[in-house]
């Protein structure tokens, strides 16, 4: 399978800050890859370099085999870029905005009119065509932004936090559009800090922290790969502090979080015997247990566990990327 996006030892510094620190990865054509990291981790800088909006201090980046520093024009022809916010021009309607970008991308006459109409239809903006941009809701604005990025029907899309600030309904709608684009075979590189959302739609995920890639793999590999404790939710009758104290003194058990009427605790062992023993000990120590059940592990927990447990050297080898076909 061909590689749509590749980064090779990318470094980008701003004064003393290494925003992107020796980042390398490859994204196969047609896959949807999530890019996850905290604010300031280096996501946007990496994406800007890939989108030819910035130049790396060292290293190379490729889109469809073209190096970003040498062939920016070729890359721009096949690349759709969507930032986290869209600039709403005063005095400009939705249709005028899309028409401007269609003109700027070289579409003329009937082609231009057709592209604008197609994009408005795809993003559900036809009924809002004459509405001024600064009167759009955030969700409508993001759909417009996605529509603008799609005007020239790019094969590679880089979406920087497209769901930031959207309400749940708009988020669902955006996910639906991204899913359709993915089914059309576009390569989509999408950043977000909402892990669960990316887990659902991405073939694999790239995790970046302090400018360095710390994990590259599927959501499943993250959930099962960090070696963190298995989480149980326990509810008792009486003071929660008793249960907390019990966790502190019991080997193989760790207190994760106090919740109303109980705790979330971690068990080191997955063995049914050990789990039964832990419950037996809990009841044996006088705690009136009303609920004891295993929680499905959240991606966020897995990510935080990974950040806490891995103090990776900068030259850590990056795991190979699973291809979309290999995904369950």
């Amino acid at each position: 399978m061909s590689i749509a996006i590749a980064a090779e030892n990318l470094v980008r510094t701003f004064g003393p800050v290494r925003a992107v620190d020796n980042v390398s990865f490859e994204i196969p054509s047609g896959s949807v890859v999530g890019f996850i990291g905290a604010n300031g981790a280096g996501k946007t800088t990496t994406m800007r370099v890939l989108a030819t909006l910035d130049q790396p201090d060292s290293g190379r980046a490729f889109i469809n085999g073209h190096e970003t520093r040498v062939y920016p024009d070729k890359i721009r022809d096949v690349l759709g870029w969507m930032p986290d916010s869209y600039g709403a021009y005063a005095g400009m309607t939705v249709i005028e905005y899309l028409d401007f970008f269609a003109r700027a991308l070289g579409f003329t006459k009937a082609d231009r009119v057709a592209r604008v109409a197609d994009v408005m239809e795809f993003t559900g903006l036809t009924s809002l065509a004459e509405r001024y941009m600064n009167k759009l809701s955030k969700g409508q604005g993001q759909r417009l932004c996605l529509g603008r990025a799609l005007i020239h029907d790019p094969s590679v899309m880089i979406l920087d936090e497209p769901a930031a600030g959207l309400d749940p309904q708009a988020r669902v709608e955006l996910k639906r559009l991204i899913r359709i684009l993915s089914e059309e075979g576009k390569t989509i590189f999408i950043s977000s800090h909402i892990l669960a959302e990316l887990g659902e739609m991405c073939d694999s995920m790239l995790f970046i922290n302090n400018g360095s890639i710390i994990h590259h793999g599927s959501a499943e590999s993250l959930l099962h790969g960090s070696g963190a404790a298995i989480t149980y939710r326990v509810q008792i009758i009486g003071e929660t502090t008793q249960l907390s104290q019990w966790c502190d003194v019991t080997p193989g058990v760790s207190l994760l979080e106090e919740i109303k009427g109980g705790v979330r605790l971690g068990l080191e062992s997955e063995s049914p015997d050990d789990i039964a023993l832990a419950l037996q000990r809990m009841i044996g120590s006088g705690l009136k247990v009303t609920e004891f059940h295993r929680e499905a592990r959240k991606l966020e927990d897995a990510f935080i566990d990974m950040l806490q447990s891995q103090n990776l050297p900068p030259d850590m080898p990056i795991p190979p990327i699973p291809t979309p076909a290999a995904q369950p």
Partner: protein
Amino acid sequence: MTTPSPANDLRDFPDWLSPALVKDLRRGLKLKGFSFTFLALIIALTFLLAATILSGSGSATVMGFVWIPVALALLVVQPTRGLSAIPEERSLQTLPLIQLTRLNAFRILFGKWSALAFQTALLTIALVPYMVLGHFLGGFEFTQNVLILLLLTGFSLILTAVTVALSVIKIAIVRTLMGLAVVGPFLLTLLSGGISSIFRGGGFGMFDASALAGVLLVTIILGTFMVFYLISSGASQIAIAGAENHSTRRRLIALGVIILGGVLCVFADNLESAFGIADLEPFIFIPYILIITAVVIDCVIDPAGSSLRIAKQFKGKRLASAFLSPGWPSGWFFAIVALLIFWICSGLLFGELTGAGADEFIAAALAGSALVFVPGAIALLLPKGREAPLNSFFLAQLICVVAAILVAIVGGISDLEGMFALIPHSNIFLAMDNGEEEISIFCSVLHLLAAFIIALTCGAVYRSRLRAQIAEVVEIERNTPA
């Protein structure tokens, strides 16, 4: 029956028009800035003309007042609007989105300028009926007034190009101050009633139609170059670092214009006698000095930074890369070449115009050059000044001007020879002071030497980076199968 798509309404502007122009025109004509200016101007002119015709007062006096709202709209309001061209795109974060299309930075800025120019042209056209009415009902001189109107429009378009180029300055206060420096003099003249007197008695009132046509011709020629040069210079500032090269073409054209200007300077007397034109020198020298000033400033503020794409253009062209590659490191060398041509060619004309001797010319030339090069060198020492010296340069200029004013206040205007040595902006007055040429030249040489040493030192890293990139390009091409 199917509903027609709203996209079918998108044929209001033809495809051959620049997309940036279409975008800014669609918006500009809808926004309050233009509508308000247009309406206010029409109302003011209607009122003034009606008053003139009803009162039967003299045409020259009234025409002086008629020009006030016209000059205000063309020389102050329209150019001021240019200052917000790029800041708006920056605040909306739309610049990267546009840069990812096929519009390069030049076309983006040119679109901004042409949208404003189109609106200025609409204002001008709307004024012509008033000139006709004034001629038939108020006895105004039609040809002369139309020429003055065209001249004002020309100035307006040049000033708008200046403000659109200045709009790339990121620091708001510096941008505002520079904008004020451009339109401020016109506003002050208007407020003090100066424009009225210019058009009534002196200034343009003294010119006959043929002289005005000559000024208009010079304005059009100068304006065409200045608009291109300023927009191109601004484009270099907003282009994605190292991705676009506007500098080489701009410098080559500037070199041609400077050589042409030099030839005109040298043969000014012959041209006067050949064409029977009197006093041609100011029409050559003043535009020439404006051009060289713009070129030298541009060369020291051109952002440094190159990429493999740009390096590829200079493969095997060592001399071209030293003078014409984008960025101030080569810009300083180009500025020296341009200045040398200017000095050599304009020396005689300067003497004829001002009656100054060689010493005075050298003192003025060196002190004038230091006004650009010293702040240019200071800019390189300020934070972020080496990658993109534009903001730092204008900050350094402000610092120098304030320092010069302080020196003048503390020490008095005269008897300041010792303190003049410190600041080039004070030294320029010394250069113009009869009998102080030697000390001025000495100070200027020191200023320029220091500035060039700083520029050479700071530029070394960029020059070696470009050489390395050229070598990388050669290597890539060697390894790429045919």
